[in-house]
């Protein structure tokens, strides 16, 4: 994939035009990952109906890769079942973006973690483990 910067075109596209940025009102679950001291924090909110992620939003404080992976993970799991969503690995997010620079792979880990944390929050609210 062509590199026009530290990132390829696909990453830059998600940075420029992030999908599903923002916050859901009355979400079924909210999760966060990272912390501002490390320079990356992601927050994902989901609306779940019948075990399907019907809607999803993210807010991210972080580098270009952090914003792009957040955007990508929301696209990948939207309209997926929870089990399908949990099967989306950080590598899958990075691959869907056409690859990330090695020093930025941790961003894809954060995206996976924020999603899991949102799903955990949903389960918790449901009283399930």
């Amino acid at each position, binding site marked *: 994939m062509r590199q026009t*910067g*530290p990132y390829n075109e696909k990453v*830059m596209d998600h*940075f*420029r035009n*992030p999908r599903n*940025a*923002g916050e859901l009102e009355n979400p079924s679950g909210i999760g*966060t990952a990272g912390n*501002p*001291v*490390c*320079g*990356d*924090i*992601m*927050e994902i909110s989901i609306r779940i109906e019948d075990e399907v992620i019907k809607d999803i939003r993210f*807010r*991210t*404080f*972080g*580098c*270009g890769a*952090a*914003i792009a992976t957040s955007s990508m993970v929301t696209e990948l799991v939207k309209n997926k079942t929870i089990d399908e969503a949990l099967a989306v690995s950080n590598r899958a997010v990075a691959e869907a973006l056409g690859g990330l620079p090695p*020093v930025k792979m*941790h961003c894809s880990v954060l995206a996976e973690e924020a999603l899991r944390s949102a799903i955990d929050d949903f389960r918790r609210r449901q009283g399930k483990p």
Partner: protein
Amino acid sequence: MNMKPIYLDHAATTPTAPEVVQAMLPYLEGTYGNASSLHSFGREAKTAVETARGRIASFMNARPEEIVFTSGGTESDNFIIKGIALSRKDRGNHIITSSIEHHAVLETCGFLRKQGFSVSFLPVDSNGLVNPDDVKKAITNKTILITVMHGNNEIGTIEPVAEIGSIAREHGVAFHTDAVQTFGHVPIDVDELKVDCLSASAHKLHGPKGVGLAYIRTGTKITPLLHGGDQEKRRRASTLNVPGIVGFGRAVDLAGTEMHAESSRQSALRDRLMEGLLAEINDTRINGHPIRRLPNNANLSFAFVEGEGLLLSLDMEGIAVSTGSACTSSSLEPSHVLSAIGVPVELAHGSLRFTLGRDTTREDIERVLRVMPGIVHRLRAMSPLARKGAIS
């Protein structure tokens, strides 16, 4: 996006001035001799090198034989710090430096620490100033070298070098300053600054990349970093980079002519930039000293957003800036300089450095002021840190 690109990263490197390129060309094309050769090709090269050396020396009030040409600021810092440490190791093993030095100094001191030297890293105040009293208190009978930079590459603060120099002299300790950011930008007189050694790098003043200098005051013993041939009076071996040195000489000539006018022109534009950004964007702070700072440096922190996102967004507009110093811009840790002046870590992550140059125009600054608010706003809207009310 077809607008004229705007380069505001002159602290990372400057465009080579057309006059400099012109001066170098004859030494790339026709006059290619090795300055150590005895024949006419060699002598022409040597004459060119010595002419440049003479001009550069007088620019900084040094003697020509006190200038050793190197490959850049990093080599000069490594050469001087290791070279003084090694040559004085019988007298002591203690080095004093500041916590806001460039990595070329910090990492070199770190290396020496592994080799058995002990290093004191002095704190700075919230404007980035080293306190000369701290230097005095840190000196022990083992202290052999003090190295404190002249102008900081991130926040632009200019250190009280002459005061530290007086203290070093009183105690008979060698004193080095890294003047990579100031050389050619503010007046430098090695006697007034009371330095024994000084580093500079040509590409920071519109000279070519790959050439720098180490000033070594007469009488200062120093172990070479590059061993080999007899060049540079045996202080730095290797075939002289004749075109590079000639270009450096020309860049110093230009600085001699333009420095004063450029310094006031650039600092006026820089002030307009800082004031405009502060006025237009909430939750913004200026880093570095309000007055004692490099004329071309503006460093600001924008709360709730991260610097790389700002940098990439500006880049999409054709505007080049930096988040930290260039060489660490791929690192994840926040700048050690911003930490040292007490910028909270989250805020440090949202910092940008704008550094102006000879080619920067008023219109460039106005365009930055037009696009910056929108960029910050867009990223803040996406940020989980920005409380709604806080978004400008």
